[in-house]
């Protein structure tokens, strides 16, 4: 490095650290950090529940937990991880922090609404945690009727209210992003000069805004049915539980894309930076995000092939499911083509990119097994499904999230973390993840059903392997919290652009000033113009 990087005197946190400066802040960067803290807490909690699940499944006879406790445990794991970690993770933390920086704006279009979103998240999270911790919830995160409406004895109504409230946090975040991306771009920042991270968040925001209200009304109907004995889904009165499943998956399948699209946006940023090469097929990657958002709304019933559905509609949904794989494949091919003849470096974020590529590939291809009408009958509700969606959500979404945290950590905090520890834990997470979930593909294929607290003896070896992997994975997740926090106090100043990356966010100081840019940036070049970028990190 040519010159010593310095830590700026004036940045968005220099205004103060008192409680008021956080709880009443309208700065998107501070709100991003509030989200980072709150979703990290949720991640730890959801992870503890995952540990309990794996602990119970160490033994085949279910002696560690009663069936009821086990049901409540996997429900808590699912509800926390889906609604309170995965869905907000990248958008609410990094999208919040980065989108205004990336498009050269002072803030999101609606800063107060952004703060309100965080409060709704906390309120919804608090209510749901109360439901989960005091008495518990045994319906699974899917709340299938009539079990949830008629038979469940637990806190369904309370959890429903919590998820309803948190849903509006997600909707308002999406609304804020859409308006910001449309109306707040800096001069010269045309649509096709936007970073692919922003395109991915635009597609995500569309799903958040159009999908989330459907689960909100659905979960509200479940609550009304429980509280006022309305009969929306009650088979005794002619109500149709399958209708609930349609409405539920109309959101909850697109929700998978809320989790994975932002992660794909992260991969696009990282892979081009660490290949020192302009991203291959920019407009294809951008448009495939929109294609995923659009087609993603048309595949929901592939979760219901065995629920009772006309064979012709099943065929249509199966075909559409194959169709949605195409834009994902386009992205993957373009990423690989970006690597080709690139000058690849193995910094921590890039290791997460490679983790993502391999795991997402496996997760995506096994998804086709499940979208296929014939094989799905064999695999439905087995551990194969569990393994598949963990390859997408953990292998895809969380790898992208961790890659993003490591890539933009120097920007957010102005400090560098230990590269050696970063690489070590990335590798540990990769190994632990595969050890946890690959055996589950085999278990599922052999016929082990999900959501049972007991299983036949012959499945024990693979289950023990899986639990061992989960232990490694747990340690892998633990390390970053130590070395990242350590870097806050002892890390070297990062300088404005430690990676030599392109993009407006790297042109301002690290951490950025409250107004993001001292002067409104004017964009004059195409994105990812790495051919002209110096290899040395720029120091400002």
């Amino acid at each position, binding site marked *: 490095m040519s010159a010593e990087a310095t830590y700026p005197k004036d940045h968005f946190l220099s205004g103060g650290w008192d409680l008021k400066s956080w709880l009443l802040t309208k700065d998107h960067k501070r709100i991003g950090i509030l989200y980072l803290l709150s979703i990290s807490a949720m991640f730890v909690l959801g992870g503890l529940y995952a540990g309990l699940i794996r602990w119970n499944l160490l033994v085949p006879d279910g002696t560690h937990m009663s069936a009821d406790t086990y049901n409540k445990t996997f429900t808590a794991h699912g509800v926390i991880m889906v609604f309170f970690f995965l869905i907000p993770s990248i958008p609410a933390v990094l999208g919040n922090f980065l989108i205004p920086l990336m498009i050269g704006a002072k803030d999101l279009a609606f800063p107060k609404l952004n703060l309100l979103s965080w409060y709704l998240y906390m309120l919804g999270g608090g209510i749901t945690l109360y439901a989960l911790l005091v008495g518990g919830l045994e319906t699974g995160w899917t709340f299938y009727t009539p079990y949830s409406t008629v038979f469940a004895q637990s806190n369904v109504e309370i959890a429903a209210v919590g998820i309803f409230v948190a849903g509006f946090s997600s909707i308002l975040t999406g609304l804020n992003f859409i308006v910001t991306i449309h109306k707040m771009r800096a001069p010269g920042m045309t649509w096709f000069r936007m970073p692919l991270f922003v395109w991915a968040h635009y597609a995500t925001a569309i799903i958040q*805004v159009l999908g989330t*209200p459907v689960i909100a009304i659905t979960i509200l109907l479940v609550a*009304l049915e429980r509280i006022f*004995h309305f009969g929306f889904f009650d088979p005794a009165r002619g109500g149709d539980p399958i209708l609930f499943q349609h*409405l539920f998956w109309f959101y909850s399948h697109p929700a998978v894309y809320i989790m994975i699209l932002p992660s794909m946006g992260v991969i696009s940023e990282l892979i081009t930076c660490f290949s020192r090469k302009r991203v291959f097929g920019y407009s294809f990657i951008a448009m495939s995000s929109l294609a995923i958002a659009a087609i993603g709304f048309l595949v929901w019933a592939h979760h219901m092939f065995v629920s009772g559905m006309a064979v012709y509609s099943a065929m249509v949904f199966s075909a559409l499911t194959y169709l949605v794989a195409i834009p994902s494949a386009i992205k993957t091919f373009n990423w690989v083509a970006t690597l080709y003849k690139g000058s690849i470096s193995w910094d921590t974020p890039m290791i997460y990119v490679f983790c993502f590529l391999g795991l997402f590939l496996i997760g995506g291809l096994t998804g086709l097994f499940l979208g296929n009408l014939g094989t799905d009958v064999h695999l439905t509700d087995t551990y194969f499904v569990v393994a598949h969606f963990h390859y997408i959500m953990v292998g895809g979404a969380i790898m992208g999230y961790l890659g993003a945290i490591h890539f933009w950590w120097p920007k957010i905090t102005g400090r560098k973390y230990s590269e050696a520890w970063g690489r070590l834990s990335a590798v540990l997470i990769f190994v632990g993840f595969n050890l946890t979930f690959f055996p589950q593909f085999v278990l599922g294929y052999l016929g082990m059903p999900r959501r049972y607290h007991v299983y036949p003896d012959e499945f024990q070896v693979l289950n023990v392997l899986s639990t061992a992997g989960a232990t490694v994975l747990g340690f892998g997740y633990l390390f970053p919290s130590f070395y990242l926090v350590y870097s806050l106090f002892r890390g070297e100043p990062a300088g404005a652009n430690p990676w030599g990356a392109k993009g407006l966010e790297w042109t301002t100081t690290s951490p950025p000033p409250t107004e993001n840019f001292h002067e*409104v940036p004017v964009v004059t070049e195409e994105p990812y113009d790495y051919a002209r970028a110096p290899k040395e990190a720029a120091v400002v």
Partner: protein
Amino acid sequence: MSETTTAHHPALQHQFTDLRQQKEAVTLGMWVFIAQEVLFFGGLFAAYAVYRSMYPAAFSAGSHHLSWKIGFANTLVLIGSSLTMAMAVHFAAIGMKRRVVGFLLATVLLGSVFLGVKYFEYGDKIRPCLGDGPYTGCLVPGERFDAAALHLEGAEGGHAQIYFSLYFGMTGLHALHMIIGIPIILGIAFLAGRGAYSPEYHSPVELVGLYWHFVDIIWIFLFPLLYLIGAH
């Protein structure tokens, strides 16, 4: 549009360059919000479509039990409130403060009339369900539901409960949107009275207008779907 005059307008928020950008942003924001509202109600409309095609007889019987005359009168009241709202937005755009306040208050009045009528409509269906019975004429879904009042028996009584679940769910959610809208309109009327708005800056009036029209349009769909099934 000159930037110099609007760049320092007191209503301009710091993240925007000028009032024009701010106005475009907040207007788009409201349209996006309305889009999510369409999907929010959309879940109920989907459920309605499914059950009406499954149980046409029970839906028809349930619908005949509602008074289409009251529903129609209330529809006129609500359309009237949309007119007064449109007038308020118009006068805000040309800066006639007193008329803005007047028409906003007229909108609140008409909206309250609508809700008052709804109160009595609900009351007729809920009152028989209270007390110790015999619950004749009770039309709230649940144990006390009186299918005989609709001349239905057996499974069709259950189907009629679904109709009334949807009736209360859909009109209730619609009424809730009005109950949220009215205090907001009152707040904006208050600010308008204090001279907060001008021809350059009156986005809040326009936005609450958009919201109110949206809520009215929902009712325009609810009225025929719930009140006019099988009416000739």
